[in-house]
């Protein structure tokens, strides 16, 4: 039964990572399973050189998110994109810096908006720039749910991976001065991105196994018990560590960005880990389990 979905053409991008080999080195250096290393692994708020790959004056109008999306597609699934591949951007806050700039324009320029900036405020504009620069007509959509975006990703993937057509995932956030005024959910949002192609109907890959009301229920499941490796969100990482279960987390390369599951799900594939792997996400007080067999 080909119920699995394969993940291919993976790319990661942040201030410290531009290649898969860099991810592999960090993994072998213990970054993903040693939380004592996490605070020292700092990510810069600026990604340099993103315009270099773009041979068009449009690059001067593109937001940081748009530039990052272009680059990560070029380094990842964009190399092998087909006309029928749908492209989805998952981002909690998408074009937040543009919103911040517009807000400041209201205050400083008496409600005058630069017409070159306004289109950048729509949430899928980075995908539009990509299609325009690459002269392609692929289906594009952005899914954005703020702090609930992790949940949205799971909700979408568990259905979409049952359709047989391939699709591309891009996930990430741009940093913004917007977050400096946050009082309640003080988060470390960093410019960090991932992209990959998902090929449903495969004999290997990932499959969504369902949600569990408690971590004990999940860890008592047959699949979990047979897993050679476990990947989890930050909170679940510590819960499993307290149970003396060896676990990895993508947290150091994503920090508090609200779509960590998109990064986490691709890690086993990127690292070419063999055997059965559990990928867990705690969202909405439930524990979601993805089975990965590579």
């Amino acid at each position: 039964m080909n119920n699995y979905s394969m993940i291919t053409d993976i790319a990661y991008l942040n201030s410290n990572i531009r290649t898969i080999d860099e991810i592999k080195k960090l993994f072998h250096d213990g970054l993903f399973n040693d939380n004592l290393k996490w605070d020292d692994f700092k990510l810069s708020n600026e990604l340099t050189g993103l315009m270099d790959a773009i041979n068009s004056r449009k690059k001067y109008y593109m937001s940081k998110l748009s530039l990052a999306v272009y680059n990560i597609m070029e380094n990842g699934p964009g190399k092998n994109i087909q006309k029928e591949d749908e492209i989805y951007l998952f981002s909690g806050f998408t074009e937040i810096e543009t919103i911040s700039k517009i807000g400041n324009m209201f205050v400083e320029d008496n409600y005058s908006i630069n017409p070159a900036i306004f289109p950048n405020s729509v949430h899928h504009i980075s995908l539009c720039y990509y299609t325009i620069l690459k002269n392609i007509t692929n289906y594009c959509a952005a899914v954005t749910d703020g702090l609930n975006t992790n949940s949205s990703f799971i909700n979408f993937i568990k259905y979409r991976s049952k359709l047989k057509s391939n699709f591309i995932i891009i996930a990430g956030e741009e940093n913004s001065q917007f977050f400096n005024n946050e009082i309640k959910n003080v988060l470390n949002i960093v410019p960090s991105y991932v992209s990959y192609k998902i090929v449903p109907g495969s004999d290997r890959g990932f499959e969504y196994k369902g949600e569990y009301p408690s971590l004990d229920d999940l860890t008592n499941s047959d699949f979990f018990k047979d897993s050679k490796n476990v990947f989890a969100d930050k909170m679940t990482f510590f819960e499993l560590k307290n149970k003396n279960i060896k676990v990895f987390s993508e947290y150091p390369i994503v920090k508090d960005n609200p779509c960590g599951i998109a990064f986490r799900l691709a890690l086993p594939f990127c690292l070419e880990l063999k055997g059965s792997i559990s990928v867990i996400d705690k969202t909405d007080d439930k524990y979601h389990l993805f089975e990965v067999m590579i």
Partner: protein
Amino acid sequence: MRNVFITGHSVISSLGVDVEESINSLETNKDTKYIPDKSNIFHKPYFPVNFNFDDKSDMTLCAKIALKLLSLTEDQWLKLSPLPVFMATSTGGIKETEIVYTKNFNKGIKFDLAGRHYFYDVIPEIKKRYDDKLTGFMTFSTACSSAGHSLMHAFNFIKNGIINKALILAFDALSITTLYGFDSLKLVSENGTMPLTVERDGLSLGEGGAIMILESDPSVDPIAEVKGVFSNSDGYHITSPHPDGKMQIECIKKTLNIAGIYLEDIDYINAHGTGTQTNDEIEMNVIKSIFNHKPSVSSLKGFIGHTVGSSALIELVLCIEMLKKGRIYQPLNIKTVLDEELIPEKTINKTAKYFLKNSFGFGGNNVSIVVKNLF
């Protein structure tokens, strides 16, 4: 493949709250356009929702619209719960963030921005009221075509037997960002939008929302059936459609192909019809290039404005209801229509078994929908 039936819906716009008030407003040609006076922060006409939501609450307007839509259709969808919810918005609750920026940022005051910015309080507010009756939220945001995407994914998942029911929920609120933003692009009408007319001079923005219940095994007599939905990209320009409209043509044709119907089966087309020079010209050229049998064509944006991310769903619900009444509404003061053979010059009596709905967003994001009416 399964059928995808519409078994319930409702709508909120400047026309009113729920379908009955909305159709009454159309039938009586109620002008719901608001013309601001000089003291208003924005001077060009727009279409606000005139409904007294619970003003004591500090919820965003989008959350209030969403909860109102859910309450209007509660009797229908609660019986089907739990239900996955496919949401759509474009500008969402930016208006509340604007207030924070304009009044308080310079004073260094901090706020619950991540929780309340844009529309991010909608899901928590829905969960607070409905607990686990609604699950599986995801929100598509592709500017003006947003609701089309939500419908498309629910349609595809139901059609392919992955789920058997879904709720589509779309909403958008007016904001200074969109009012001034579209105006900065010189796309806003001076005196009120006149879509698909020679005299058109731009769009007028609106706000509101819509809700739709989809089922493959209808629990009640269905109102209509979604036959096909398709989407693609122009890959051409950030704000303007391709002058040849070639990807819009492909979008419409593929939608018809998915629906399994002939061109001649389409009796009515509800255009995206924003009232801008470029959109309306290209869209009419696209329609005329495909359909030789002269189906009726109109736009509802002259009545409710451009409700941005929620427009596809609001207009879909209104289309179903107006065709159920056997009418195609046109504004009383409509000017010279772009094509007398296709576009009615006044409100007419018309029934339509199949109709097409177009929705074209920024960046050339195209969605087309074919619906079969079952009344």
